[in-house]
């Protein structure tokens, strides 16, 4: 008896995996990687291919995780691209203006700065009760404007930053890029928090029904605020890594990333209407989004078509989600009628 329980829970877990919203998208990712590898084994089985596969999506994964948390609360953060650009430039500036500044301090400063920018968004959304889309559309412009004003035509080059720092962007640990490890750790913590803690579940409760959450006594204002702070902090972290990975930062760094981040989350099954989805899904969505970009030329499709494929993917993912939801509902109704 006692030995049977773990077995049944294991099978349950496996069948549960098949039903999870994230499974379909994971399957798509595996298919893309397999197809590309069959066409050109170097896509996966070469040090460069393997590294690119993990490294390229890592920065977007960070931003998408923050975006997913905000989306779950039935809000949206359109300012992440601008926040990222600002913190990336801040990173460069700190290295230039304060020679010999410890890297840890720079990372911390960027994260805190990102969190502050997120706090501005969150405070405006939570206290002024203005829709997040409007507020973050405003700060998208405002932050980018500040960035351009601060940067001007200036730009930070790789030679302005210490080698140790740049190594963070390209370096590896046991064959796995450091950036990917950081992204994975952040992802695991966020996923665990969202799934298992009271705080994490409250985000879902708020997104499912804000009014009910308020009546139930959840501190909606504070939760919404922290969701934006988290999103800002993660965009800040992404900004540091952007600087480390690409070396060159001009005033347009991170432009347009907001739609990639939202797109990644949507592909990964995070509902734009709140309350549904996981940070895992958003992360897989981000990986798929950027992997397709590299896979298309190998599959013989010019990469000009990349955005079209991404668009079809987003639409396909939400249509599939909808079909599954409708079917699930019908099944539940049938089950109810039979009992």
């Amino acid at each position: 008896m006692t030995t049977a329980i773990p077995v049944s829970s294991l099978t349950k877990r496996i069948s549960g995996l098949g039903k999870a919203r994230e499974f379909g998208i994971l399957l798509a990712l595996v298919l893309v990687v397999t197809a590309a590898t069959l066409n050109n084994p170097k896509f996966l089985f070469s040090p460069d291919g393997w590294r690119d596969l993990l490294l390229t999506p890592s920065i977007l994964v960070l931003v998408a995780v923050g975006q997913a948390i905000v989306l779950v609360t039935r809000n949206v953060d359109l300012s992440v691209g601008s926040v990222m650009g600002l913190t990336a430039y801040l990173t460069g500036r700190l290295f230039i203006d304060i020679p010999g500044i410890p890297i840890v301090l720079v990372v911390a400063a960027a994260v805190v700065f990102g969190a502050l920018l997120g706090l501005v968004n969150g405070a405006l959304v939570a206290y002024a009760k203005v829709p997040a889309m409007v507020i973050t559309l405003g700060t998208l412009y405002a932050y980018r404007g500040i960035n351009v004003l601060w940067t001007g035509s200036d730009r930070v080059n790789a030679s302005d930053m210490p080698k140790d720092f740049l190594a963070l962007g390209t370096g590896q640990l046991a064959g796995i890029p450091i950036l990917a490890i950081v992204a994975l750790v952040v992802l695991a913590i966020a996923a665990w928090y969202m799934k298992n803690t009271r705080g994490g579940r409250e985000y879902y409760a708020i997104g499912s029904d804000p009014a009910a959450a308020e009546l139930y006594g959840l501190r909606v204002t504070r939760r919404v605020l922290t969701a934006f702070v988290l999103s800002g902090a993660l965009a800040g972290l992404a900004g540091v890594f952007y600087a480390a990975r690409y070396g060159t930062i001009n005033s347009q760094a991170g432009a347009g990333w907001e739609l990639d981040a939202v797109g990644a989350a949507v592909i990964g099954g995070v509902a734009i209407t709140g309350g549904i989805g996981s940070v895992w899904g958003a992360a897989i969505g981000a990986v798929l989004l950027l992997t397709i970009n590299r896979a298309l030329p190998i599959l013989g499709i010019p990469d000009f078509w990349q955005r079209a494929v991404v668009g079809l993917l987003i639409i396909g993912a939400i249509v599939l989600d909808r079909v599954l939801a409708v079917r699930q509902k019908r099944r539940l109704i049938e089950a109810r009628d039979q009992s």
Partner: protein
Amino acid sequence: MTTATTTSPRVIGDFDKPLWRRVLLTREAAIVGLLIIVALVSSASIKGFGQPITLTYLLLDIAPILLIALPMTLIMITGEIDLSVGSMVGLSSVVTGALVQAGLPFEIAALAALVVGIVGGAFNGFLVTVVGLPSLAVTIGTLALFRGLAVGLLGTAAVTDFPEFWTDLAKAKITGTPIPVITIPFLLLVVVFVVLLHFTPFGRGVYAVGLSKDAAHFSGVDVERTKFILFMLSGAVAAFAGIFYTLRYGSARGDNATGLELQVIAAVVLGGVSVFGGRGQIYGVIAAALLIGSLASALRLVNVTSDVINIITGTLLVLSVVAASFLAWLQKKRRRPGRTPAGAVTAS
């Protein structure tokens, strides 16, 4: 005949107040006021702002935004959104260019681009109404899809060979005035949309859908059909704007008008349309687009860079909505003295 604005909840509550308060103490009036102030101050203090050429360029520059803002206003009043418009401008530009390059007459190419716009809009409408998906997610998808088709069709190439008659017409001014010719079709469209929104059952339906989908449905409004038509209109107008854009700059490129959707939405929201739907007027949106445009051209004349203009646009957008929300809170507090403002629970 009552106009559809009477369905707006704010106006319902204000009926006991005199007419001037109802007209002047609105968001739209504030934006119009701000526009007048900016125009007067700039003409008085900035050399060159009052000159006809400034007005010409101002109108030419914001024409695509103004055009697309018209259907976007209606879509956002129903509580939906269309993020794919910027990409549709690009796609229609590329379709026009590619067909002209293939040897077709420009008129046929432009017509084909319009058809592409209508089909693209219908695709959005189909996914939103028939499949029942959230428009924000759908149009993020078609934002990528349409842009991808545009870039895929032309690559990095650009088509620049358009009949001179048409490229000249796009920049031409009405004889004897500084007003560009594009203003005429624009004004016609304004009239069409104002009539559609404020003087037809369809328009009242648009407000009703935004206020409550269910209530609208039970009062006999075909919610899905209304939305479907609006998305189709949005696609068509975006395609028209794309053809204009192509002629104005004499160049069809896959990346034309990237990011235009955010500028349009900024104008619509600044103009007093609620993203939750049910509230908004076309004249407010036009005033907001003109305000953003005149601010930009005034600041450019005093050598302020476009980045500061971005900061100002963004801050204006945030401030305008925060101020409105603060005023509403203040009013509520005044109405119920001694009571806390309802535990800060508001409809969201």
